[in-house]
């Protein structure tokens, strides 16, 4: 799972796809995940970072992450 190279992101969670002109806002956690995807971190590493940082059940987070990544794929943000 890799973010498309030309996707622009900001620390505030704003995502801009210059190929389509679409822009999106994501919350703080979403923004952290986007940052890690941009750094080409493996999925397991993202899961470990978020689960150690926040009080979240790992199974629940894995399901949420799966949903989130599906959305990013639908919006052609992921390669």
């Amino acid at each position, binding site marked *: 799972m890799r973010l498309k190279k030309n996707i622009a992101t900001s620390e505030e969670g704003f995502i801009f796809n210059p190929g*389509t*002109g679409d822009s999106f806002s994501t919350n703080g956690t979403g923004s952290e995940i986007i940052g890690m995807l941009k750094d080409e971190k493996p999925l397991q590493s993202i899961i470990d970072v978020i689960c150690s940082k926040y009080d979240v059940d790992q199974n629940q987070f894995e399901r949420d992450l799966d949903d989130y990544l599906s959305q990013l794929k639908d919006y052609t943000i992921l390669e």
Partner: protein
Amino acid sequence: MESQIKNPDKKNKKKIVVAVTALNAIDSPGPGVAVIRAIRECSDFEVRIIGLSYESLEPGIYMHDLVDKTYQIPYPSAGTDTLLGRLMHIHQIEHLDLIIPNFDAELFNFIKLKDKLKEAGISTFLPEMKSFEARDKIKLYEFGKKHELSIPKDKLIYQASDLAEAAEQIGYPMVVKGKFYDAIIANTFEQAHKAFYQIQAKWGLPIIAQEFINGTEINIAALGDGQGNTISVIPMRKLYITDKGKAWAGITIDDTSYIDLARKFVRITKWCGGCELEIMQTCDGKSYIMEVNPRFPAWIYLCAAAGQNQPATLVKMAIGQKVIPFRKYEVGKIFIRYAWDLITNISEFQRISGTGELEGMKSK
């Protein structure tokens, strides 16, 4: 990257007199005001702008910081002789260097007249009649087939009774379009019938019944040099669309497939001047050319703002200066159109209505 004039002489800026049409700026605006704004922004030359208007309430007539003087010209239906007579009268007073017509409906006459205008010392930068006609709405499907471009299926309709046959071939929803402007989406025969008469009353025959394509609307503004080279091209995604289908907000995007498509069109037609390709991008990634407008679009100022000033570059080419094709532009540049109540006096309205001329305060 700014297009550069070879051997520019910045110290001796020439004052160029440019006449521009399409000064209407209503909810379906003409490109004239945006074209003038872009030309005025170029620091390579000084300009005197002459507005050419058809009606007394075209807002650009009263925008005296943009238009130095406006003259009314006859409607296209009056023919080329009447238009030429009026243009020669204006030329005697203003010594025009260049005319940039921006209405689809007037372009036929201006292209017909371009040699006579040239003889009189007035430049234009317009496509050849053959190219102009090839991209006409009523011939676009055949043009696409010949050059392997995706164009929605269509059928020309000369009487309402032909709609049923068109519907059998195209299906519903169907887009009922005028030969110059306007398009109505019809979901039933009754809606198509009503749309046929509505558009016929406004734009005459034929009417075009076109296959409906669902997708994302992308417009591309391009500038051709008349030799097959694209000097500038910028794609824009519509962000907000009015009930007339016009972009009220849009953003420059970075997608080379659109740029390649526009370059192909310019190369095939050896397009001379500005044009706009209206694209529908389907969810499976196919790009259909819905229309090719033979002039700058109303959103053309966005191109200048993004780093490719197409109207100013057209002026340079029209007066014989060499330009280098643009290669870069700013992606993510947004335009948002807005309405503004311009206030004028009855005396100005009276002058343009009564004498067909109105000079701006700055020019007096």
